[in-house]
């Protein structure tokens, strides 16, 4: 007998469930988690290095590095004195919530305020997989071309911030920075945009200020919830 069965099930429901468990763990630990997306070569790791050198003395941070096969990124981060754990996806084009959950089992988040997850270099797939982060940020280097935000709208729709990297190379390109910003805002009116050069360090300060505010925002929120709980138990 042949039956037609109504299923109505979200294909990513399994991932979203694990992402929810990760998010709950992050909430309990009071750690702000940023999922960092961008194409290969956009400058994600270099942005992290710049961020670490400015913030590591004021924020207790750790990094999870997603990469297809190598340990190169985690080694780069570890050189700056910040704990870094590498996830190799063995060809997989994105990190998913289960990979993060497995990695968290061998990480100590005690006292950690900021966890940055550097996703696999790819502007398409990682945007589809929630890993339990508080927010996403997307790094776009201006040498990739001004048309990329509209060609790959999803990460820009979802991100809280965009870092436009390599602005030191603007004189060598035809890219109109204002037009790129206008396209990004057309996708996401509330997004914060930072024009930076990770090579010269220009603009990195405001990005770090923003990141620090996000971390504080989460701590304040967690603090409020903590206080409320104490009042309830009194």
């Amino acid at each position, binding site marked *: *007998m*042949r*039956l*037609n*069965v*109504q*299923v*109505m*099930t*979200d*294909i*990513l429901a*399994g*991932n979203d469930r694990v992402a929810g468990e990760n998010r709950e763990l992050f909430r309990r630990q009071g750690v702000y988690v940023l999922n960092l997306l961008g194409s290969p070569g956009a400058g994600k790791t270099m942005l992290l290095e710049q961020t670490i050198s400015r913030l590591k003395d004021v924020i207790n941070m750790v990094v999870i590095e997603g990469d297809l096969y190598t340990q190169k990124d985690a080694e780069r981060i570890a050189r700056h004195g910040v704990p870094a754990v590498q996830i190799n996806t063995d060809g*997989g*084009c*994105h990190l*998913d919530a289960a990979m993060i959950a497995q990695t968290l089992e061998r990480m100590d988040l005690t006292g950690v305020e900021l966890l940055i997850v550097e996703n696999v270099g*790819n502007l*398409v*797939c990682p*945007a*589809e*997989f929630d890993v339990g982060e508080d927010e996403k940020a997307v790094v776009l280097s201006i040498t990739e071309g001004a048309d990329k935000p*509209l*060609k790959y*709208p*999803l990460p820009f*729709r979802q991100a809280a911030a965009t870092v436009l990297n390599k602005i030191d190379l603007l004189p060598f390109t035809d890219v109109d920075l204002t037009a790129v910003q206008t396209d990004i*805002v*057309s*996708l996401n*009116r509330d997004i914060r945009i930072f024009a930076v050069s990770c090579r010269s360090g220009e603009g990195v300060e405001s990005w770090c200020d923003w990141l620090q505010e996000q971390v504080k925002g989460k701590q304040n929120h967690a603090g409020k919830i903590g206080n409320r709980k104490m009042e309830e138990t009194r």
Partner: protein
Amino acid sequence: MHELSIAQGILDIALKTAAEHQAVRVGRITVTVGEMTGLVPDSLRQGFEVLAAGTLAAGAELVIDRIPLAASCRECGREFLVENRHFYCPECGSAGVELVAGRELRVEHMEVE
């Protein structure tokens, strides 16, 4: 590029549903895929075919319903189809829009025997 992960998700759902109905075979599976999921239908079918081999869903046909990208303006409430990645409201020109369709990734129904 993430078609294989999605195909695995579809297969997991199909096999679970088949088990719930004590089915011996899975027939046609209908899924809805929004335009803004970056999925290539042919790759999804191929990925599914490879993963389903040797399971109850081997040879099952994957029917993919594409859902166009639609948005609603937060300012004036106008609903419209987003074409050519132009996310501005055609009524008032605002960039503040909510997506109302186009992000679907769902198994709708399937045949079991």
